[in-house]
């Protein structure tokens, strides 16, 4: 009996805390706090954009969630509290067409490069070199934009390559190549810039290359959210484009 009294108090208290936490998350949408879901390849650029935006919009808070576009789309379909979605391809954006407010618009583009170990010790010069026997090539599954783009590049070059792994997102490819576990993979030019001196990039000729369009859209739950609108404008505006360029993106 002595035990049950504190428990009688604690149990409802726990429930209240849980409900409060859940409610607290929900109420953010009306405030100056915005949650942005962005493709992994935007990690560097959007992190910096967030800092500048918050500085020029006092009181606003931007939370950016980075993952592969396809898993973010899945989260949005499952009702994740996301206000703005920036995808690495149009196909993925179309999957969440029911959830977006207005139209999605392309805010930047990205080209592809072959990521190789620092200094390119295997002297990989072209896409066809990826088919070299014994070379460990990794990519992503075709549902992930970079996986689909890589497959397109290989088919344009007329090369068949058996990948050693289908990584969950482009960061998986970068991590394994910079760690020396894999020899090469096709990634965004921006990833080559982000890898800095930990890896090197090999240019893919334009006729084999893909111009990846990055669409951005506000989601329906943020239709009345002015900060979310301001964020989209910021990204599409001069300041946002300057940041994107610095990270290797090309203006549309």
């Amino acid at each position, binding site marked *: 009996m002595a*035990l*049950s009294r504190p*428990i*009688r108090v604690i*149990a409802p208290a726990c429930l209240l805390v849980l409900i409060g936490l859940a409610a607290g998350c929900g109420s953010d949408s009306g405030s100056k706090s915005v949650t942005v879901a962005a493709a992994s390849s935007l990690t560097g650029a959007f992190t910096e954009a967030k800092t500048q935006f918050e500085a020029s919009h006092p009181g606003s808070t931007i939370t950016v969630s980075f993952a*592969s576009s*396809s*898993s973010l*789309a*899945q989260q949005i379909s499952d009702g994740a509290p996301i206000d703005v979605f920036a995808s690495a391809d149009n196909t993925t954006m179309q999957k969440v067409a029911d959830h977006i407010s207005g139209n999605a618009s392309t805010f930047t583009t990205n080209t592809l490069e072959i990521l190789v170990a620092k200094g390119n010790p295997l002297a990989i010069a072209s896409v066809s070199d990826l088919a070299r026997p014994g070379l*460990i090539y*990794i990519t992503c*599954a*075709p*549902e*992930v934009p970079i996986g689909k783009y890589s497959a397109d590049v290989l088919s344009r070059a007329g090369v068949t390559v058996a*990948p*050693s*792994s*289908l*990584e*969950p997102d482009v960061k*998986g490819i970068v*991590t*394994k190549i910079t*760690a*020396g*576990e*894999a020899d090469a993979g096709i990634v965004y030019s921006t990833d080559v810039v982000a890898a800095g001196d930990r890896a090197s990039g090999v240019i893919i000729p334009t006729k084999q290359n893909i111009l990846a369009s990055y669409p951005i859209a506000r989601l329906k739950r943020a239709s009345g959210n002015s900060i979310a609108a301001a964020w989209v404008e910021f990204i599409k505006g001069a300041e946002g484009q300057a940041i994107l360029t610095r990270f290797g993106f090309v203006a549309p």
Partner: protein
Amino acid sequence: MAILVIATIAVLFFALPFIGLLWRMPWSEAWSLLSRSDSLTALRLSIECSILAAALSVVLGVPLAWVLARVSFPGRRIVRALCLLSLVLPPVVAGVALFSAYGRRGLLGDPLANLFGVHLPFTTAGVVIAQTFVAMPFLVLTVEAAVRTLDPRPEESARTLGASSWYTFRRVTLPAIRPALVAGAVLAWARALGEFGATITFAGNLPGTTQTAPLAVYRALEANPDQALVLSLVLIAISFAVLIGLRDSWLGTSSGSGDA
């Protein structure tokens, strides 16, 4: 009463997610989704690798547990903590740690690749290594606890009867800890079956070679969510059945050896 209420809340807390899964399950297509060759390949690979990982955990973990429980040496606490670290490590970090050691440029992986041409990343062996790395602590913890509570005198008796330490371990210690050994092996196996982070980081993700069922679930979640649900259900059903079986055999045999 209050305890019952809280206990019920706890049960619901565990049960609801599974009920939710069943609720979302596309029952009419379940069989066709499951019998897809990529589902079956991933399940078969998962079961094979997890059994190998459990076996490897037993072979390496039981002697380790015995030493931790019976041999006192300086730094034993540190060694124990080290061997249990992968239990609390984020699995992705475990994967990074694994390729720092056994990867192509790793401490051991480099000589392995240069001298023997053995590559672990992107191979099924790599999956087994990753699973063993995160699963073995379950076995070590369970078996060490059992050895610790074991009366040392039967072992001492065996030695005075002329049995070597290995013979004693095999004939006297092992049978006495068998219930804990079975329990530990099953827990390790279940952990290996569900392993995701270390596997995808260290071994990669390729259907038929390294794509185990949890990896296939993760991938299918984006490409074909219904297939992901069906695969998850199979994983849950297998683990659930084994855990139920484990409880009975554990209680059953331990009460049998307890009075002897």
